């Protein structure tokens, strides 16, 4: 197939991808957009098969069956609560593919005629570096989310120094390659040190900061793919890679803004490690007596309320309680209670995590309220039910300048007439920060596993 015809057909792919993103502006037609993107991908693969120098059809077909088969099965079987790690996994393999393409290119180009042009060298170095970081970083994020390794930040003395050194080795090898010292072992050094850097850089990042990291790794893979596009002089890779790069970057910025922290602080702050001191101070100040309630009491509060707002957090995902919450909400609606859900942008482990979980439980999406929409409503809310959320409802973020999360925008549940907190125990949340909401006289605690507590509430509301 000629160069021009190939690029003309790739245009179909590009349009498919753009429409997919455009259709994501509303849940009503987002699914159709995704299907258009899939068709675009199919066109691109078919066109590439028709490349005039194409060899190894069987190898490619076999690779597609193996990879595609794994992808399809994993994607079908995964539980909605495990979605963040799935996204991390698929993100990582894309980055890995970009790095491997760079290795293959260099291996073939270098030995004899050698010396690719400067822009091609730069593209090769960038795709190898970013792709490798994205691959190993995503694998660590996957392992943390899947709890194969501990989710808490892993830190040691001199960590920043070691990380910096490893990155320096990768960058130095890259510069040497671009400067014309084109040896294959340099690219191997670059790839291996980038892989190591990816691991080291995600290890110290805590679970609660995962939304930022996953978005960032998503952007990385996009950039690596765009660099691969320059390496192969292929338009469709450049456009698709940059669309993803822009999306990932924007999401990263939104997530860190929602936590009121700079990206540097998220990536290098090892949050959730510190703050034991601050927590102690906060607890002391609150001088806390905590009111604990029985499920029957809470059931009465809910059933006779006019307006109830559920505030879900990562605990909802851990307890797999989304279906139970929805049943309880249905029951309350039958009794004439107005029910909605207030969703903090960084609740959960990835952007929009809670929305997907509740959508899985068939909660109609108009009931899912963003923070800006939900906050003015708390004043006229009778009961706010906090299910497995902690830091995103911590009033210290508003009031206590000494708190590590001071300045983070939160859901103002303390403005509701009453607050019910479903919680396993009085252990502080992930970041180890004490929450004065629990000591608020308006608050009652319902201790236990979120799913069991909700089930008890359902039974008790039914019995009323």
């Amino acid at each position: 197939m000629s160069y021009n015809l190939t690029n003309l057909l790739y245009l179909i792919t590009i349009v498919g991808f753009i429409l997919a993103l455009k259709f994501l502006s509303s849940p009503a037609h987002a699914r159709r957009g995704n299907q258009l993107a899939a068709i675009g991908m199919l066109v691109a693969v078919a066109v590439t098969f028709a490349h005039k120098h194409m060899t190894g059809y069987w190898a490619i077909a076999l690779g597609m069956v193996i990879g595609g088969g794994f992808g399809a099965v994993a994607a079908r079987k995964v539980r909605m609560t495990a979605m963040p790690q799935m996204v991390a996994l698929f993100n990582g393999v894309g980055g890995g593919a970009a790095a491997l393409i760079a290795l293959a290119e260099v291996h073939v180009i270098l030995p004899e005629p050698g010396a690719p042009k400067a822009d091609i060298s730069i593209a090769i170095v960038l795709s190898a570096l970013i792709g490798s970081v994205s691959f190993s970083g995503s694998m660590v994020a996957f392992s943390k989310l899947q709890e194969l390794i501990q989710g808490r930040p892993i830190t040691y003395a001199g960590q920043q120094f070691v990380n910096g050194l490893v990155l320096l080795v990768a960058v130095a090898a890259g510069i040497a390659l671009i400067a014309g010292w084109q040896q294959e072992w340099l690219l191997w050094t670059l790839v291996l040190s980038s892989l190591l850097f990816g691991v080291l850089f995600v290890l110290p990042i805590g679970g609660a900061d995962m939304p930022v990291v996953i978005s960032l790794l998503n952007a990385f893979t996009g950039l690596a793919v765009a660099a691969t596009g320059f390496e192969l002089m292929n338009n469709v890779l450049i456009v698709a890679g940059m669309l993803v790069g822009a999306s990932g970057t924007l999401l990263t910025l939104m997530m860190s803004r929602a936590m009121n922290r700079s990206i540097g602080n998220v990536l290098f702050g090892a949050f959730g490690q510190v703050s034991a001191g601050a927590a102690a101070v906060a607890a002391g100040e609150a001088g806390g007596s905590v009111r604990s309630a029985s499920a029957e009491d809470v059931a009465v509060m809910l059933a006779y309320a006019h307006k109830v707002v559920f505030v879900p957090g990562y605990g909802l995902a851990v307890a797999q309680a989304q279906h139970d919450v929805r049943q309880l909400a249905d029951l309350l609606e039958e009794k004439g209670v107005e029910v909605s859900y207030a969703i903090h942008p960084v609740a959960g482990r990835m952007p929009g995590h809670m929305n997907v979980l509740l959508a899985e439980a068939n909660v109609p999406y108009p009931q899912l309220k963003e923070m800006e929409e939900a906050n003015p409503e708390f004043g006229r809310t009778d009961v706010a039910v906090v299910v497995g959320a902690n830091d995103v409802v911590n009033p210290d973020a508003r009031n206590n300048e000494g708190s590590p999360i001071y300045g983070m925008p939160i859901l103002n549940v303390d403005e509701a007439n009453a607050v019910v907190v479903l919680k396993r125990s009085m252990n502080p949340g992930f970041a180890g920060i004490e929450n004065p909401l629990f000591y608020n006289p308006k608050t009652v605690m319902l201790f236990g596993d979120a799913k069991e507590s909700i089930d008890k509430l359902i039974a008790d509301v039914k019995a009323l």
Partner: protein
Amino acid sequence: MSHNTILVFELTILVLSIFLGIALISQVPTLLHTPLMSGTNAIHGIVIVGAMLVFTLPDMGAFTWVIGFIAVVLASANVVGGFVVTDRMLEMFKKREPPKPIDASQDGKGS
């Protein structure tokens, strides 16, 4: 076309794509941020084209062949997994399923 002409052309596409990306993504509601992530995940599976192009390189040795093969496997997992997961998610977003009566007290705000 000379190499440099193509390069300038590619850079133009790159810059336009960045602005297009930002314009498109800023229209996506937070409700759909997870499908956005997994959808863009599927889109960067386009790297499969690059993986296939490894098999158009002249004088492929065993090493290049193996690397290309692994790249195709990884990229296919990325493409298929990404699209299937996104489809599964988007299928779930519903206004209200039909059998349930519409609650009058609900604010009927769409999207």
